[in-house]
């Protein structure tokens, strides 16, 4: 039997809609982010003029403006060319348009960042500016795509995931190379412009270093997703979790353990009786060490949120009959995304308020603690609903309720810490939260993997 060229109308239609909405959401995020960014920087206008040497500090907003502009053009063009649908052939063309447009959009977003570098990295500033917007898009984009693809039973790399492993991974690396090539032009151009403007080879190689980091970060993320997808796709028979989901869960456990490890280190360094005094005697600057450790801990906690969302999205494919549970997972994913967006944006809020008054910063910290508590509370409710549906509908062991119990315990403890702020309580919350969090995840993994899920109607013979 001869093979036809791959063209899956269902996947193309779904992906077209996913990318169209994704571009719109990216524009909204970019707008919110850009407004917060401008608002915070207006406080530092005079300082920026002094440091940068010119009055046009709006160059900082080129990344946001690029995303918004390209998004607007793509969506307007899409509406003009494909707005009036006559029959299914128009729909095909419309979906194909967005499949191409999204690639242009992603490349443009990164090049928007690259173009900013020569204007913001002067001889007075030795660090290459981090593109928090690109990091935010990378994080939220992965969660959005993962959720929407898994909800619709679409595998990543769907056009070649059925190929043999050798061919599959060759194409995966080819895609990474294509991305690297597309980004290189923008970054190399920016590096040359900077060399012309400032004459600094340090900046020139710094920009190329930023390019390498961007490609490595995106490439590793894509490779990880491609690997776990291929593992799940090739799995012939299974009990328990899909092997791809299982592997992601293991990464989540390792990440949670690392976050906990750094939590313990932060407490140890902060405590004079443990490491604090020793480090001071050795001549270390405690403040810098604490800042670095807190930053690394934050990074692992952030990765844990993303991995949790990914694991739940992939797990959704196995619980087709759990409608309430799937809705709870949708809620958890949305909440995770909102929480991550707040985390990124609040840097600007704090910067702005710091320039005003210390009292305003304290007020904001209090508001932020309440917001964090509300989010944790809603999260606990959603996890309870998910576990309820898993126990009721697909008869998972009632021991699963222990996971919900741990969530509520840490939520209540977190509320107590926010209210009373006692140092001992904070320490207890940090340590017990970490241990119980890890233990509950491990229990969840064991119970899910031992369960025989309803047959998913796929045949491999």
């Amino acid at each position: 039997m001869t093979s036809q060229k791959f063209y899956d109308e269902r996947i193309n239609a779904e992906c077209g809609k996913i990318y169209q909405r994704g571009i719109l959401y990216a524009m909204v995020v970019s707008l919110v982010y850009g407004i917060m960014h401008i608002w915070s920087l207006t406080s530092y206008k005079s300082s920026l003029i002094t440091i940068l040497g010119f009055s046009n500090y709006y160059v900082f907003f080129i990344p946001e403006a690029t995303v918004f502009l390209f998004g607007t053009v793509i969506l307007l063009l899409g509406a003009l060319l494909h707005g009036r649908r006559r029959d299914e052939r128009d729909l095909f063309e419309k979906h194909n348009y967005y499949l191409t447009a999204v690639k242009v959009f992603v490349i443009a977003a990164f090049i928007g960042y690259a173009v900013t570098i020569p204007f913001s990295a002067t001889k007075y500033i030795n660090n290459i500016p981090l593109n928090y917007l690109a990091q935010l898009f990378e994080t939220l984009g992965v969660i959005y795509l993962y959720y929407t693809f898994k909800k619709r039973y679409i595998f990543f790399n769907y056009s070649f995931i059925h190929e043999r492993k050798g061919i599959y991974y060759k194409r995966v690396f080819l895609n990474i190379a294509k991305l690297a090539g597309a980004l290189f032009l923008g970054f190399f151009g920016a590096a040359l412009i900077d060399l012309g403007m400032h004459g600094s080879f340090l900046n020139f190689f710094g920009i190329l270093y930023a390019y390498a980091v961007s490609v490595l970060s995106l490439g590793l993320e894509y490779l990880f997703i491609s690997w776990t997808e291929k593992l799940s796709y090739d799995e012939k028979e299974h009990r328990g979790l899909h092997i791809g989901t299982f592997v992601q869960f293991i990464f989540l456990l390792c990440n949670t353990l690392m976050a906990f490890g750094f939590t313990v280190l932060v407490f140890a360094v902060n405590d004079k009786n443990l490491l604090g005094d020793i480090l001071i005697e050795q001549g270390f600057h405690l403040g810098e060490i604490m800042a670095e450790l807190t930053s690394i801990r934050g990074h692992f906690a952030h990765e844990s949120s993303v991995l949790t969302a990914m694991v739940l999205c992939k797990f959704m494919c196995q619980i087709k009959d759990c409608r309430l549970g799937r809705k709870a997972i949708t809620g958890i994913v949305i909440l995770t995304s909102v929480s991550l967006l707040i985390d990124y944006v609040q840097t600007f809020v704090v910067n702005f308020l710091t320039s005003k008054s210390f009292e305003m910063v304290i007020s904001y910290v209090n508001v932020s603690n309440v917001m964090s508590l509300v989010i944790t509370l809603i999260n606990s409710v959603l996890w309870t609903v998910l576990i309820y549906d898993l126990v009721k509908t697909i008869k998972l062991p009632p021991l699963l309720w222990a996971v919900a119990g741990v969530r509520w315990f840490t939520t209540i403890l977190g509320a107590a810490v926010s209210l009373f702020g006692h140092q001992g309580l904070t320490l207890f919350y940090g340590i017990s939260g970490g241990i119980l969090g890890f233990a509950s995840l491990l229990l969840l993994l064991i119970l899910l993997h031992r369960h025989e899920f309803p047959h998913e109607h796929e045949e491999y013979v």
Partner: protein
Amino acid sequence: MVNQRMKAARQGKNLSQAELAKAVGVSRQTVNMIENGDYNPTVALCIKICRALGVSLNDLFWEDEA
């Protein structure tokens, strides 16, 4: 509505879902979803499936009047 006739025709030709998917140029999941009634294919895809299985449109996709 589950398409038992398509599944029977596919099994009659000793084809797996993956093999039929490759022959037609779609993903294994799409074939699975069509058989389970979770996706309604377009006429163009219905024709491709019928050609691959050597049957007519009526044989696979015409709904019997109950």
